[in-house]
């Protein structure tokens, strides 16, 4: 079998994650979906590195992980503080940007 299937899988996961971001209202779940998308990307990177026979792809995936970690930390902190003030974690309730 051709490793390109990994890419198809990555694409599929990415799409699912995206759909999740659009559908779910719970901020935490939305976050998880984003993580899912990131992971999909990582999978793609890893596959690419295998494809090209050098480790740069893995390096990128590595960095992605680091950044994701940082992002999750900050993001969850934000969610917590929002929850403290508004007693809900629904992204729709945080729609103060509209006029």
């Amino acid at each position, binding site marked *: 079998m051709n490793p390109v299937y990994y890419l*198809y899988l990555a694409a599929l996961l990415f799409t699912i994650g*995206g*759909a999740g971001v659009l559908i779910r209202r719970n901020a935490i*779940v939305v976050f998880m979906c984003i993580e899912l998308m990131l992971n999909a990307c990582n999978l793609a990177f890893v596959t690419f590195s295998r494809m090209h026979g050098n480790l740069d792809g893995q390096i990128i995936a590595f960095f992605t992980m680091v950044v994701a970690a940082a992002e999750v930390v*900050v993001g969850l902190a934000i969610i917590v503080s929002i929850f403290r003030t508004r007693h809900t974690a629904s992204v729709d309730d945080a729609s103060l940007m509209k006029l």
Partner: protein
Amino acid sequence: MTVLAAAASTGEAVQFWLLGIVAVAGALCTIMLRRAVHSALSLAGTMIVLAIFYLANGAYFLGIVQIVVYTGAIMMLFLFVVMLVGVTAADSLKETLKGQRWLAAGLGIGFGVLLIAGIGNASLKQFNGLGDANAGGNVQGLAALIFTKYVFAFEITGALLITAAVGAMVLTHRERTERAKSQREQSIARIKEGKHIPPLPAPGVYARHNAVDIPGLLPDGTPSELTVNPTLRGRGQIRDVSRESLAELKALERRSEKWLGRESADEPEPPPSGGPAPKEHTEGAKK
């Protein structure tokens, strides 16, 4: 190390198809399940599968990191926050924004199709595996790259992590601006507020049951929500025993009357198991 030649072995193929299905299922569960906890768990599953795929792709280091950092740390962090926040009843999957779901589905599918089509018509035939790249060991290879070619990016991510940590602290930390209220002040406040001047009633404790998750019954036998812990209430984990106790009461009276020999034929047949109708509830609330 020649395992990872261009074309993957059959074993890998089998592994791919089995675990791939698992991964997709996990992803779908992540976005479908109503309770955040379940989503988190299924996502963790997907991630583990992905870790295995990394390994299969010769990214040994990443695979381990994936399991340790992602599944181990990040997902646990998620669960932690879920416990902290999302223990309330699961959010309904009913869509509030008009047409959002259809748009999401349409765009999602369209996007996926586009991606897959893109991958499809990209000519990715020849795979020169990681054989020689991993020759000196995968970790060594990565390390060599990170500390030479990508050293700046590495440093910057370090800075990023520190910043993130500090930021999280700043965001979540709450300075206590005023002294905690003493019991006296609280009571004064309660009286000012004017409801629940006495302390909250105790949960129902009876001969047969004895637990904090059972609401105490009002004189008319209706359960009082106030008597149970709000968290249990929020989770809806309350055991309502009003029916049984009422039924027993009735039976007791019957028997005693029979025993006293004064029966009244016009005694209405009590409902054998009549859950307190909502109206009685309200009455109970009134009393």
